[in-house]
Every structure is written in C-alpha cells, then in structure tokens.
C-alpha cells in the first residue's frame, strides 16, 4: 500500500530552478494527473519520483519510506515512457520479462507472470515479435506490460498516449482507466491532453513554472479555479476574460460592468473587494447563450460549424475577441451582430493578483 508525499520538493539544473517547492500528497490507489504548459516541469517531477533525477532539496516519501536516495529499482515504481523505450534487440516476451530476469525470478514464475500480463493486455499473439514488427498501439501495450509484470505500487506515465492517433488514444484511455480499476495501484500520469486529464484523474495537479497552481478533482478545477492560470488552462476552448469594474455590492452578490457587458451580478467573496475595484471576469465559451435581451453584444468574425455545436469568434466593442460555443448548428454570417446572455452562476471573478474571488462554499 503506497501513497506518496512530497514535502517542499526542489530541483535546480545548475543554477536554474525548475521545480520550486512542490508539496503534495497522493493517497494509495489514486489516479493523479499532472498537467501544465510545456516546460513547466511535469516530466522533471515525474522523473524525480522515479529516481531518474536527483532531488535538490525537500523530501519524497513513497509509502512510509523516505525515498530521496533510494535506487529506482527499490522504490516500487514502474514507468511508461512517451517513446515506449522498448529494447529493440529483444522479443516482446523478453522485453516484458527483463525486469524479472534482473530480479532473478525463477523461470517458471517468470513465464507465468509474463503470460498473465500479456493476457491482461491482450497481446499474447505478439510475444515472439520484435518491437520493430509492432504498430504504435501494440508497442504501447508492451510498454505497459513491462510495467505491470513488476507489480509496482506506483505507476508513472509520461505522456504515454501522445504518439498514438486520435481513435487509438480514446481506446487506450479507456483501457488505462480499466487497468487502474483492476490493479488498484497508485498511478501518476503526465499529459497535455485536457480530455485525458478530465476523464482519467481522481485528482488533477496543475503546474506552472515549477509551482503547483491548484490540486483538486477535475470538476472542481473546472468550476472553481483557484486563479487566472488554472481558469485559462483547464477547459477547452479557453475561458474568456474581461476587465470589469465593481458597480455595487449586495451581500454575497457583486454587480460588475465593463465596456462590453452592461452589467452582471456574480456570487463572489465580496469581503475581498469594494465598489470601484477593477477585477477580471472569466466566462467560459460554453456559458454564453443567444438571447435577445442579453447583456453582451458583439460582431461575428469567424465561425466554425461542427454540427453538434458552433464555435464563434466574437469581436466585442472594446476590441477584445471572445470565443462562444453555441449548442447546435447555427448558420451565422460574418460581421453579423449577436446578442448573448451570460450565465452568471458560472462566471468567476479574479482580483488584481489573479486569485479567484469565489464565494466560499
């Protein structure tokens, strides 16, 4: 049974800090997804857990063992690489069994474990092939097989699906979810893909510049982002932002206006604002609806018709461009004026420092 505990983890390359103090705890059996922009240190953090990178300072606990200076093979982890990293000169059978061979597992047991893993991943027919004779999806299976034969407490995945085509990615995603259910092991997963993060995770960790921005369940991150960065990063298409002024405060409701929006009343933490303050309003593209009495007016500049929904780029009077996702198909013409209503129960206000001003629950 192994959870993980990070205490003020730091990593510097030379004098360049990459991970700047990460505190995090992961329960046993949780599926945790690290997301963040490219170069934010996701892979570095994962490799620190694996023991492939030294920890500059801080503590890494796996289970109840302090693992800062423990060899990778003794950490009870297995890792799946983006490039699969299969040994090209070995058959699939030997690839999967390599770790067991090194651990001097006896031959019969090794064989049984390899065949078990192959059965779980439905790749029994591939065991005699070399990696070069496999498709991308099959290689991915072998890489996962190599991880599961070792029966680790913690699985580490670094963008394992990003080399697969879209359809296969969906299949493998579901298989991973099932694998997680069946094995009940802790999984830590790095991805760029919003959908992977939202669907797989019990807990998402949003990183930026080596700092944890927010940790939480996927829906929490979507509905209650802690700051501008998380709000902009989670959800696709991206959240729209506008600068607004507080017009009046009434209990937990703040009414804000801007050049583009005549007025919206938002439930917010009103104790941290006062009338006249300049704040940032965040509105998700999905939360704008066509409404003849709406508070937002803009001109259509670009339309993408996807059939089930329509993506519209809207030019607002102030010059800002907002993205709107309308349900169903709409045949809109360029420069047509649209009037939209803002669903005020879903909008979020942010203060000057970018922290969200959500009403406490």
């Amino acid at each position, binding site marked *: 049974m192994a959870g993980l505990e990070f205490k003020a983890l730091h990593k510097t390359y030379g004098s360049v800090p990459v991970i700047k103090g990460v505190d995090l705890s992961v329960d046993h059996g949780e599926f945790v997804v690290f997301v963040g922009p490219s170069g934010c240190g996701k892979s570095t953090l994962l490799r620190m857990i*694996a*023991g*492939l990178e030294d920890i500059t300072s801080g503590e890494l606990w796996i289970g109840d063992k302090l693992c800062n200076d423990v060899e*990778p*093979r003794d950490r009870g*982890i*297995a*890792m799946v*690489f983006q*490039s699969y*990293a*299969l*040994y*090209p*000169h070995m058959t699939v059978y030997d690839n999967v069994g*390599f*770790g067991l061979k*090194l*651990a001097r597992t006896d031959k019969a047991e090794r064989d049984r474990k390899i065949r078990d893993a192959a059965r779980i991943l439905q790749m029994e027919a591939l065991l005699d092939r070399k*990696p*070069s004779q496999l498709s991308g999806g099959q290689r991915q299976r072998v890489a996962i097989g*190599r991880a599961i034969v*070792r029966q680790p407490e913690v699985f580490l995945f670094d963008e394992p699906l990003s080399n697969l085509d879209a359809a296969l990615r969906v299949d493998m995603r579901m298989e991973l979810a099932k694998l997680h259910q069946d094995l009940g092991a802790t999984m830590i997963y790095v991805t760029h893909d919003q959908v992977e993060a939202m669907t797989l995770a019990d807990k998402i960790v949003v990183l930026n510049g080596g700092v944890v921005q927010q940790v939480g369940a996927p829906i929490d991150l979507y509905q209650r982002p802690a700051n501008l960065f998380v709000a902009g990063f989670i959800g696709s298409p991206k959240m729209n932002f506008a600068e607004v002024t507080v017009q009046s405060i009434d209990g937990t409701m703040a009414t804000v206006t801007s050049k583009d929006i005549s007025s919206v009343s938002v439930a917010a933490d009103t104790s941290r604002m006062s009338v006249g303050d300049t704040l940032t309003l965040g509105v998700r593209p999905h939360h704008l609806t066509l409404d003849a009495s709406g508070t937002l007016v803009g001109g259509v500049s670009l339309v993408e018709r996807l059939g089930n929904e329509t993506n519209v780029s809207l030019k607002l009077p102030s010059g800002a461009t907002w993205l709107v996702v309308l349900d169903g198909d709409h045949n809109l013409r360029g420069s047509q004026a649209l009037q939209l209503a803002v669903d005020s129960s879903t909008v979020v206000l942010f203060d000057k420092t970018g922290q969200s001003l959500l009403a406490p629950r």
Partner: protein
Amino acid sequence: MKRRASIIGGVAAIAGSFVVFVIPFIFIILMAFKDKPQSALRDFSWPQGFHLWDNLVQVVTTRNWMMITAFINSALITVISVTLLVVLAAMVGFVLARRKTRMNGLIEFLILAGLMIPPAVVPTIWLMQGLKLFGTLHGMILIEVAYNLPFSIILYRAFVATIPRDLDEAAIIDGARPLDVFFRIILPMLWPVTVTNIVVQSVGIFNDFTNPLYYLPGNQNATVQLTLYNFQSQYNTSYNLLFTNILLITVPPLIVFLFFNRQIVAGMTAGAVKG
C-alpha cells in the same frame, strides 16, 4: 546520355580496382606456384610446373616450424586485443556519450591526441622494460590496445549518442545496475559498430608489422608478418617462398572479412529507418 555516362563510369571503376587489387593478388598466387629459379625473374609468366605444395611445406617448416608459433602468437594477440578493444572502447564511448562532466572536453582532447600524435618508440620500450612487459605477448597486447583505442572509442561514442537515453532509463527502472545496462542493453545494440570494429581492428592488428618488430623481439615471439623476413636477405631472397608466405598470411584476414561482410552491410543499413 546519363545512362551511358554511368555505365562508362562503372566500367572504369571496375577496371581501376582490378588493376589495384586483383592483379597484385594474381601475381602473388602465380609466384607461389613457381620454383626458385623462375621466381627470381619476378615476371608475370605462367609457372613451369606445380610447386605450391613444396613451397608451402618449406615455408611452414622453416626455422623449426616458426610459422606455426607465429600463427599462434598472432592469433592470440589479435583475439585478445580486439576483445579488449571492443569492451573497453564501448564502455568509454558509452560513458562519454551519456555522462556530461567538466572533464569531457579534456578527455576528448586526449583521445584525439592519441589518434593524431605518433607514438614514440624508444621511450615506450624504456617504459615497457621498466614494467617488465617488453618482449612479452601481454605487453604487445597492451600496446595494440593502447594504439587502437582512440579510433574505436570515437566510433562507439558517435553510435551510443544515437541510442535514446530512454532505453537506459527504462532498464534502470526495470532494476538494471550500470553493468547490466551496458552489457544487456547497450552492447547488444552496438553490434553493427562492433562488427565494423572487429573487422577493421583485427585485420589491422593481424597485419601489423612494425609494432611487433619494435616491441616483440625474439624467435619465440614472432608474429606472422615477421615471418616474411625468413626468406628475405641482402644476397639471397627466395621469392617463391616469400610469396607463398604472403599468400598464407593473407588468408585469415580475408576469411574474417568474408565472414563478417554481410553483417557489415546489414549493420550499416540497420537503424537507418526509424520503425
């Protein structure tokens, strides 16, 4: 037009290599068939009579079967030196390509220096005498390893750099210790370079004439190339025996080459296309 030009070019190339490589070889074979008076003429004539067997017997038995000792010595030197070269150079290449330290620049400079600066014979002999290695087979092996190491390292290092680091790391996570990573993952993947290295170095070391001449004196220590001296002297050279000797000692490298030839070509194209 273009077709014609390429045919002419091809024919010219074949003719050129025929003159350079095949004609001398035919000359050697013809000479090996002749008797002493005819071979003394050193011309391109057809042998009168079949003397190859007599020549062979005489070459092999000369000076108390020196040829046999020489073959054993040369084989020992070649096999052990090449084995050491492969293992050591691959290890150095692996570490140099993988571990970036401040020393790398200096180490690379030393390797290049080893490749470019000609070895000084007399100080080397003095050093070897001091270490009691002079005139011994293992001393000779160390010399061959030292002289050929830089080239092999450069060969290996370039190739190790093309092996993704993920493979090492995957092996480490699978529980491999450094030596496991090297012997079970890296070295097998270096096979194409290893073949090239084996061929180039074993032919070079087997055919080495000057180094055994300097560092390995004594009849007991003769290597095959030194047996050539048996039939050559200022006043009396038996050309038929000399050329039979040449023929005899050209055969092993030829066999090595023929044996590995297909693998060399396979090695050069393997990994060229990412699968």
